[in-house]
């Protein structure tokens, strides 16, 4: 090129092709397909008779009439609601007290409570429940046996195989989540509202009762509903603790209906639709309360350091409460798993049993037939899900927040729809849909990928939505004024600026994918097992000690991953991962 033939810089080459609409169109189709198709088939199935070789499926209302006229269903409904609200109340009371002590008083060991918030992330539900069975089952529970030995009695002190037992295990499992939700609520409160109450002469308890808790009421209601939905969706807990003694809730009944012979998909679908109605109601009211709560968020511009109230000597009692909480949430469950992983045959901790400690189980896990495959499948699914979901939700989030296309809010709602769908229901719906549609996906690993993407799409939307809101529109507009196409702007400006949120969301989705059990348990086939399914199989086979060994390794791996994620997050200026 010579100096004379100088192409005009101001004019881009006249390319007629704009990548914008094909990409957005594809993303919209994928999201709609992921979120809507299984739901439609689930509804369809609930009105159909089971298909058998000689008989095609036929329209029927029998599923609903059977379900809603049977006394069984009302027992089921009663159990589910009792279980979920009991567990939610327990975790809410625990979490709120912890959050209040942590945010508003001078109790020591604050950082400990924060560190424990990652526990629900690193301990998969099935391991937490298993650990509590080893701690508090009437026959082999360590706590029972130790107390029985100490008091020389055969009285059963704790029994997890009861409704209160199930609530207890689920409640403390979700207490760290309740703690995080309520900490955020307390932190967004103007501290001078409480200071002025103290100045008025109110005691610490009067302030907590009449000002702090009253102001936190919308947040409390919203958190209760989140916890309630979590508990009513929970599968591991009712399956492991409730099924053996006949305490059934919706999730465990769906599982049982599918695994009975002959399996009753219609009944399972009807249960699933009922469950969906409950969770949708919960999430709907939760968003109403959350909006109501923002009316109270009267944060003044001036950032005071909130004053910590002096509890005097009571702070040692509060510190004791922190330590007890740490023991219940991580200390005891993890220790009992480690202990049983070191025993060839399960034995209660004692000096005699200390002599039989061995690493036998860890070797046995390595030799477990499907383990290699399962680890590879889990890693592949976690990485593929996280990558696909984050890219997909970035495009959808951009479309919803940046364009003026009519009906874009519908897309937002569709992408968030799986939030109300319990894992087990997603698994069931996808099973029904892809069995009916054919195409050979059922039984492959791709069906699991579809399930995971559906399940975790709302998380991606949340992470990307939050960072897109902070991204000034001018940054994109100036790129386009510089002559960049939509695709170039998205690739060079939007995605790099979303990077912290994208990475945080990616890591989060990797972690929750590795722990995923309730969808996988309905969709796996020989060859497509994942690690959590191997744990599930071991439980079914009674291989508790091998399960413990695999569990300890999984917890260690997830813990390393969370630490790496936090270190990484700090580098990108992320406050929480």
């Amino acid at each position, binding site marked *: 090129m010579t100096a004379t033939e100088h192409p005009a810089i101001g004019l881009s080459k006249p390319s007629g092709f704009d990548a914008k609409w094909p990409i957005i169109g594809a993303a919209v189709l994928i999201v709609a397909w992921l979120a809507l198709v299984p739901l439609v088939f689930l509804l369809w199935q609930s009105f159909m008779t089971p298909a058998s070789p000689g008989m095609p499926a036929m329209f029927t209302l029998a599923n609903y009439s059977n379900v809603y006229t049977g006394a069984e269903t009302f027992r089921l409904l009663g159990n589910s609601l009792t279980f979920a609200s009991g567990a939610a109340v327990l975790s809410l009371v625990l979490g709120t007290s912890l959050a209040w002590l942590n945010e508003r008083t001078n109790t020591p060991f604050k950082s400990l409570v924060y560190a424990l918030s990652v526990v629900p992330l690193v301990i998969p539900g099935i391991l937490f429940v298993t650990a509590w069975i080893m701690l508090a089952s009437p026959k082999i529970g360590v706590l029972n046996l130790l107390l029985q030995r100490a008091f020389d009695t055969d009285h059963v002190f704790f029994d997890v195989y009861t409704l209160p037992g199930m609530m207890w295990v689920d409640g403390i499992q979700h207490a760290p989540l309740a703690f995080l939700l309520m900490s955020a609520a307390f932190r967004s409160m103007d501290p001078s509202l409480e200071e002025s109450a*103290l100045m008025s002469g109110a005691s610490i308890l009067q302030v907590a009762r009449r000002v702090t808790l009253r102001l936190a009421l919308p947040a409390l209601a919203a958190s209760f509903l989140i916890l309630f939905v979590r508990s009513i969706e929970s599968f591991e807990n009712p399956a492991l603790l409730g099924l053996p003694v006949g305490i059934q809730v919706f999730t465990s009944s769906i599982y049982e209906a599918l695994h009975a012979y002959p399996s009753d998909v219609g009944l399972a679908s009807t249960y699933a639709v009922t469950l969906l109605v409950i969770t949708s109601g919960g999430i709907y009211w939760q968003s109403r309360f959350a909006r109501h709560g923002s009316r109270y968020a009267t944060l003044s511009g001036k950032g005071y350091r909130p004053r910590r109230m002096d509890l005097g000597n009571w702070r040692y009692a509060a510190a004791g409460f922190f330590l007890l909480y740490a023991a219940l949430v991580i200390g005891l469950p993890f220790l009992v798993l480690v202990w049983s992983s070191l025993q060839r045959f399960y034995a209660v901790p004692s000096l005699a049993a200390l002599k039989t400690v061995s690493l036998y189980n860890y070797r046995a896990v390595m030799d477990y037939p499907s383990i290699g495959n399962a680890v590879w499948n889990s890693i592949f699914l976690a990485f593929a899900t996280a990558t696909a979901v984050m890219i997909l939700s970035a495009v959808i989030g951009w479309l919803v927040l940046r364009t003026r296309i009519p009906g874009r809010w519908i897309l937002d709602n569709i992408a968030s729809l799986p939030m109300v769908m319990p894992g087990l229901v997603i698994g069931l719906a996808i099973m029904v849909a892809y069995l009916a549609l054919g195409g050979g996906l059922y039984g492959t690993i791709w069906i699991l990928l579809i399930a995971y993407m559906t399940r975790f799409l709302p998380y991606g939307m949340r992470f990307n939505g939050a960072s897109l809101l902070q991204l000034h529109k001018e940054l994109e507009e100036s790129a386009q004024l510089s002559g960049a196409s939509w695709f170039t702007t998205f690739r060079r400006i939007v995605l790099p600026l979303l990077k912290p949120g994208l990475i945080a969301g990616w890591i989060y989705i990797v972690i929750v994918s590795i722990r995923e059990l309730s969808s996988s348990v309905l969709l796996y086939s020989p060859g497509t097992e994942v690690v959590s399914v191997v744990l599930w199989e071991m439980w079914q086979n009674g291989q508790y000690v091998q399960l413990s060994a695999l569990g300890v390794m999984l917890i260690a791996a997830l813990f390393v991953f969370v630490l790496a994620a936090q270190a990484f997050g700090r580098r990108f200026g992320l406050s929480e991962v």
Partner: protein
Amino acid sequence: MLSVNSLNTEYRTGRGEVLRAARDIAFEVEKGKFFTLLGPSGCGKTTTLRSIAGLERPLTGEIAVNGRVVFSSSRGIFVALNKRNFGMVFQSYAIWPHMTVFENAAFPLQVRGTLSRQAIAERVGKVLAVVALDELGSREATKLSGGQQQRLALARAIVMEPELLLLDEPLSNLDAKLRERMRFELKRLQRELGVTTIYVTHDQAEALALSHEVAVMNEGRIVQIGSPRAIYERPLNRFVSEFIGSSNFVDATVLGADNTPGLWRVRTSFGDLLAHSETPLLSGASVTLSIRPENVVLSEAETPAAANRFTGMVSSKVFQGDFADFQIRVANVTLLSRTHPSLRTPTGETVHLSIDPEKCIVLSSV
């Protein structure tokens, strides 16, 4: 009434640095007086107020009210803030959004639990009447306007008849017109109630308008305490002079004492002056003079020669409506003069200046 002695506070910033917010703060406030802590943001005035309130625990010092020690580091006394019986109005007002106007104002009486329901209603009614909110008792507190919220916060602070009323920039969230009206309101209320009041503000006009006494603070220390007039007319140093109003600063050398007590002869680059100093000066010492612009009196007509009279040239002027600012070049110095807007001397013309020696202040420290 209130006495604060050698108060020092310290806190750690997020990065672990130790910040000394208040240093060796000491002052006394007499009963029924209106005392203001005035200074730029970060000067330690709010920290001092919060220490008095008990919202912060100082490192060292002693705070006593009516002879009752509420804090003493040497004796290990720290009275909890809910036992101090002080009323406080926060900058954000801190009106509880989940209560009505009445419930907000009744709260301090309710938590004490000593008055009957009826007695509380009576007292609250009276206090709400004082702040002209008695019609709105059952209204939701969030439905109040900014000015009404401010008055409710005040009602809540005085309903328990506190020993001390603490006000943390209560007017800063109001718009300019309302702020001016509330100044008069506040002054009237304080006089009527006779409650000893500590007021924190960064607005010098507010401080001068409201207070019996003002303490000017800078970098954690009190730099001058005095009546508003004394602070304005006789600033001790350049910071006070600059922070409260504007001022001309002129470097000078002391020649010696004048015959009139308190007046000194000084030499500046534009001529010799008579200036006022509270403290004796050494001949030959370098000093700085502070001259308020409104004390630089201009006239177009030549005046008979006398002390502190000079001739200068208008180098620029700004018409401000109720006054006019002139920049006058005298020898190699430019002085700012604030005059009545009727003076219309054009730029570049000669003008005559005179400065009252009593209003020409030698700053005691720089």
